[in-house]
């Protein structure tokens, strides 16, 4: 990937960096170097201090309420500078020119009321003095460099007209427009689908080779590290646990924590639960179609989100539903629960047709199916104590009286592995993983026959995600509950699913036992999804074997 000259001066040198947020110390004396043409991956779970480190390098951390309490950040090269002591004007001159950053959320990191061209032009005017036609030319070239189709047209478009993948390409183009010495990429692919992620990773690697910049790549995903990094630094609670060349670190991890992280990372071929052959059917969906819009007063034609989908779920079985964002998997789940009214098709739950039932008639059936959503921060009412939150569905379905709620809450919390003293606390006192446990406890309160987990672990870091999938499997073993497990990450789906259904543009293109789907995928799209999953073993992904997927138009 690169030849690191150990004798060469580092382009960025961080020494004994300490970052505090109020009384909390987020980064506790961190030191590292990056050289030209090198990619250093900063790995850690949420709260490990990796983003605080990244934001400190641009001194943007001060805007988020943080403070650089000690240490130095030196930028090398022709014009060395100590970033920690730079006056504001000199600091601004350096941002976007010599050190640039790409953020995690492409959907919200671009200004929605400015065209792509105007946003790129700002950087050019500021650091290069380019305006008008030359600026437009330069912006177009930058878009070409990140392989955006029709760059000329994109300049006049607004961010909302672009997909997430294209927006992230625009972000990268904007960051690289002044050819920075250092590019900081803060989880740039976490919000993207696996196939888009593969494209973006490949793009960053190629651009680095062309431009010779140093890249600080922040991630919690070891699969990505294996694919992109020359060196790795593992961070936990603001302390560096381990640092080394990627291949060495993966081959012989020294710290226990690194080994735990590696074990928690999803990878393909870990082994899936064996298919259940003669399970009694609890849910049968036939020919389900759901459309949005297109009503009499609508200005837009109807879009078909789910097209003629048939699935079957057996007792105690988990069906993994995989597909990219926008493929209709969430709509399918919502249609099954009739949170969205399906257009046609039949839904049979425990032997009863529930399509066409009135709202009142549907209510008792709703208790049989419970959902766990993606964002554990948004799906709990912040003003509701945990005892009330977890027992609310049971209370609403009159399965528990006011006096017994506490006992039920204690039982539920125990079943999801939370301590009994959680009962009187409020959601903000828990971490993301713990909140997701609370959401699962809430779903369990009505003794459902089916749990629909819609991207339930996508917002969690690998360790927490692993714990949650383990918990779901354990609950299934114990209670015989069936699950519809929805995810864009086929590696996560594998470890919990007896069978997998692959969804593309509203249709299910392939269904089968997990082993068969993984080892003998029939549909080209399934093969593409599998190829896009980052491999944990750096040796196993030589450049030639990396996924080559066309840029979507």
């Amino acid at each position: 990937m690169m030849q690191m000259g150990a004798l060469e001066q580092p382009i960025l040198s961080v020494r004994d960096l300490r970052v505090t947020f109020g009384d909390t110390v987020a980064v506790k004396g961190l030191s590292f170097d990056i050289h030209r043409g090198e990619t250093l991956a900063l790995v850690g779970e949420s709260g490990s201090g990796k983003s605080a480190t990244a934001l400190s390098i641009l001194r943007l951390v001060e805007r988020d309420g943080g403070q650089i309490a000690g240490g130095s950040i030196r930028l090398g090269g022709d014009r060395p500078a100590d970033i920690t002591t730079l006056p504001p004007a000199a600091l601004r001159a350096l941002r976007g020119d010599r050190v640039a950053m790409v953020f995690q959320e492409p959907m919200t990191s671009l200004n929605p009321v400015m065209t792509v061209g105007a946003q790129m032009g700002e950087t050019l005017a500021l650091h290069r003095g380019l305006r008008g036609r030359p600026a437009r030319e330069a912006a177009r070239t930058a878009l070409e460099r990140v392989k955006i189709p029709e760059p000329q047209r994109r300049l006049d478009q607004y961010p909302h007209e672009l997909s997430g993948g294209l927006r992230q390409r625009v972000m990268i183009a904007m960051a690289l427009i002044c050819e920075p010495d250092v590019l900081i990429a803060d989880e740039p692919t976490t919000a993207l689908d696996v196939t888009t992620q593969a494209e973006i990773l490949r793009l960053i690697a190629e651009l680095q080779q062309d431009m010779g910049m140093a890249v600080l790549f922040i991630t919690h995903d070891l699969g990505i590290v294996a694919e992109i990094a020359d060196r790795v630094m593992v961070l936990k609670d603001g302390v560096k646990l381990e640092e080394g060349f990627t291949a060495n670190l993966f081959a012989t991890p020294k710290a226990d924590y690194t080994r735990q992280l590696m074990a928690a990372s999803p990878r393909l071929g870990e082994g899936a639960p064996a298919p259940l052959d003669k399970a009694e059917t609890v849910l049968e969906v036939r020919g389900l179609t759901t459309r949005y819009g297109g009503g009499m007063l609508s200005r837009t034609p109807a879009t078909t989100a789910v097209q003629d989908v048939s699935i079957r779920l057996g007792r105690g079985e988990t069906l993994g539903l995989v597909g990219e964002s926008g493929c209709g998997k969430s709509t399918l789940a919502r249609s099954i629960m009739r949170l969205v009214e399906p257009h046609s098709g039949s839904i049979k739950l425990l032997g009863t047709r529930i399509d066409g039932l009135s709202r009142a008639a549907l209510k008792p059936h709703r208790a049989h199916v419970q959902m766990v959503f993606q964002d554990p921060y948004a799906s709990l009412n912040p003003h509701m104590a945990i005892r009330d939150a977890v027992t609310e569905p049971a209370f609403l379905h009159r399965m528990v009286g006011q006096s017994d709620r506490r006992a039920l809450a204690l039982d539920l919390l125990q079943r999801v592995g939370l301590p009994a003293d959680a009962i009187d606390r409020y959601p903000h006192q828990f971490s993301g993983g713990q909140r997701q446990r609370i959401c699962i406890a809430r779903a369990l309160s009505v003794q459902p026959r089916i749990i629909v987990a819609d991207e339930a672990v996508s917002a969690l870091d690998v360790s927490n995600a692993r714990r949650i999938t383990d918990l779901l499997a354990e609950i299934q073993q114990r209670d015989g509950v069936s699950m519809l497990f929805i995810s864009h990450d086929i590696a996560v789906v594998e470890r919990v699913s007896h069978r997998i259904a692959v969804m593309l543009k509203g249709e299910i293109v392939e269904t089968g036992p997990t082993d068969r789907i993984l080892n003998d995928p029939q549909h080209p799209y399934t093969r593409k999804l599998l190829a896009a999953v980052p491999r944990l073993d750096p040796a196993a992904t030589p450049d030639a074997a990396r996924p080559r997927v066309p840029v979507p138009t």
Partner: protein
Amino acid sequence: MIAYLARISVKSVVTLFAIVTVTFIATRLSGNPIDTFLGDGLTAEGRAELIRYFQLDGTLWQQYVAFLRGVVSGEFGLSFVDRRPVTQVVGERLWASGQLLLASVTLTILVAIPLGILAAIYRKSWIGSAVMTVAFAGYAVPSFILAILMVLVFSYWLNWLPVVGNGSFLHFIMPTIAMSGVLVAALTRFTRNAMLDVLGQDFIRTARAKGLSEARVVLRHGLGNAGVTVISVIGLQVAGLAAAGSVVVESIFSWPGIGQLLVNAALIRDYPVLQFGVITVAVAVVAINALTDVAYALADPRIRLARS
């Protein structure tokens, strides 16, 4: 965009019809105008004749139909008081009210938006707290109290400013400030909240990471986005509040505008003037709202492009 404009027009017409109807009913609920004009000493025959003369003898429904027919054909009738067409009576008041409204809204925008931005940027320092305290106090002081206090200080004690009429620039000062007080308070608070909301967004961090100056980050990226919501509030709320405020302020300063006319017409139950006056104000407010919708769409590409 054309479909969007058509939808706004239909919405506006429906709103106006509702207002016209409510106005008609409300004026009829308040008693008989003949008794108010003439008082005692009127013979039964004379009274009946007057009622016929003013076309108040039909059933309520007949009066309503006649009234609607008039509205459609542009015939709004004659004032009960001086028998001149109400269009003329109201028309000659329009410009005075328009001037006051324009002056107040302009003053409000010029004062409130910078204050709101300051309060957002310095929300953690004394500057932010000071701005918000003043804005909060301004919100709590009714315009008539502000008006009376100003008259007391600047006219009665200091004798600097004229109280009655609209003859010169000096006449504008107190009514404009009295009208603007509440509006400034409301718009400052709103601008501050909108700016705080926007300044916490991810793209603001992106703008800073580019190396842009703080002024450009706040004005171009911050206000550029907050402006979309601020425009809608200026149109939807500020215009409405100003219309309501003009009734009070014009009466206090004897400003020869529609607000003062309406108060007088209501006191003597001059139905035709009252009806047409309310309709005029309603048309103005609805028109401003419709213009706001258009401005909002122009300012936000997400709306503009979705509807074109």
